[in-house]
């Protein structure tokens, strides 16, 4: 497909334009091929999930999860709370650390060998399988402190950290150097310049990048499997006791042979996607307003 041989432009023009049109059509078909699964998945989730959610409208969001999974009926309240807890915990850990890491890379490290190594390894870290992060947190945290939403938050934070570092560094690169120089000229210290001039200037981009990372993290399942445990009742305590999450409920109910459980899985999927899309949309809106 990728060829470096010289082109023969002396070939008959007709044949060349036919080939051009054929390839353009193929590229268009590739776009269609991407849109089909997206539409199919969204359609399945909405058509099967929305009915489940809205036929038991407030109950689906508030009731507890049935302990016996073949029993029909609503209830994803604890899972919604669990997802919010785990994701919020992960955000509180990963976003400040990620921003600091990016500040190090762009404001302090620059092109030094250490900064280059950190930048390279952060990119590599985005590719570490999420289940490996889950096991790592299980071995270092859960074994000692037991199941809790916080363990899941730790695992998600490990996944989010390199993503936040990457997106924040890109935003810091866009802050004009003369803003920094103006602050230095006024005698401001470097830390103060970063905190009061550079970061506020890059804030909308940083928030938007972080929100995209949050949306991805909210849907993760594998890192939570070993750390969060399994619960069917509300557990508002971040730091102790087994908890649950929407993604874990979908995973657990997807392979069930009971229709009632499958229905709850679709309802949970609808709720989870609604959450993820809302967060993503907020991120997009923030960023577009800034760049326009």
């Amino acid at each position: 497909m990728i060829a470096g041989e010289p082109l023969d432009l002396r070939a008959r023009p007709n044949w060349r334009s036919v080939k051009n049109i054929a390839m353009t059509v193929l590229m268009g078909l590739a776009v269609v091929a991407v849109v089909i699964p997206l539409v199919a998945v969204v359609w399945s989730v909405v058509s099967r999930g929305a009915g489940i959610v809205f036929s038991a409208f407030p109950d689906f969001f508030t009731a507890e999860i049935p302990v016996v999974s073949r029993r029909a009926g609503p209830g994803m309240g604890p899972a919604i709370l669990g997802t919010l807890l785990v994701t919020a915990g992960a955000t509180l850990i990963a976003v400040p650390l990620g921003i600091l890491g990016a500040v190090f890379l762009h404001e302090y490290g620059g092109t030094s060998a250490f900064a280059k190594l950190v930048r390279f390894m952060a990119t590599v870290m985005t590719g570490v399988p999420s289940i490996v992060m889950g096991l790592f947190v299980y071995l270092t945290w859960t074994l000692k402190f037991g199941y809790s939403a916080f363990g899941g938050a730790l695992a998600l934070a490990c996944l989010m950290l390199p993503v936040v570092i990457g997106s924040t560094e890109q935003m810091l690169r866009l802050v004009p150097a003369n803003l920094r120089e103006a602050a230095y000229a006024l005698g401001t210290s470097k830390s103060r310049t970063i905190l009061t001039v550079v970061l506020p200037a890059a804030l909308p981009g940083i928030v938007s990048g972080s929100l995209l990372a949050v949306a991805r993290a909210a849907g993760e399942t594998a890192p939570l499997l070993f750390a969060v445990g399994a619960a069917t009742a509300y557990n508002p305590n971040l730091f102790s006791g087994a908890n649950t999450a929407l993604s874990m409920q979908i995973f657990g109910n997807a392979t069930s042979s009971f229709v009632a459980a499958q229905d709850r899985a679709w309802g949970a999927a609808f709720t989870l996607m609604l959450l993820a899309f809302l967060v993503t949309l907020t991120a997009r809106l923030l960023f577009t307003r800034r760049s326009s």
Partner: protein
Amino acid sequence: MQLDLRGRSAYGDRAFRWIAYGAGALVLLILGLIALVMADRARPVIGEMGIDFFSSKRWSAPDGLYGALPFIWGTLYTAAIAVAISVPVSLGVALFVTQVAPRWLKKPMVYLIDLLAVVPSVVFGLWGVLVLSHQFGLGRSFLTAGIILGIMITPIITSLSREVIETTPASEKEAALALGATRWEMIRASVLPHSKGGLVGAVMLGLGRAMGETIAAALVIGSALGQVTLNAFASGNSMPAVIANEWGEADDLHKSALIALAVTLFVITIAVNLIATAIVQRSMKRSRGKTP
């Protein structure tokens, strides 16, 4: 208010600098800890099985036999199917967006493809198990897993390819067009040779993601033991799927075996990611150097 330029904040400044350094070093720390902690926990099963862990086909917890070959094969095979499905489509979309689509269409199309990345992997898994394998009769197999993984890695391969392709200097494209090349000939003569390295890197990053994807694979691959076959319609298993499915009822040696699987997965994905990141960064730097 009067300015005080006597360096009162020197301590704060230095402290902030060290905090930023620490956040950067955290990335290296986490990656190092993952490798150390997991390798340590994997030792018992490697001591028991020796090299057979990687070459034996028998995996039976009651007999204390742990041969991971079928799972390594399943991971590589499904990832290969995913890449084979995803690469032509991703490349077509990237070329369409950068070379064919009118300016007003570009942004909405990029958003649409990014939406695919927001769909949680467990939702793809749910769709795969209840719609793709059930209603379309594909069953749970290597092929079903490959298709789902292929859909999931398409956004990342597309967006990386797009970035690489956009670094092609306009002068090179215009040179081809000025010689009378059609659009497709221009793509083959200027765009593809210029982006070759970066595209290879993008595909490898996609490969790494496909190998590490857990939940979707765990739901659709079928969890069959001992399958080392090229038959894409056969049920099989992959490393992350085994870990997710068997962890709950595993005893000590079994857990050690699962952790050894995670270490194997970690090493393979890190190797793929290291090479891919190096290729992408080098080709980006080279093409940036070229453009005036």
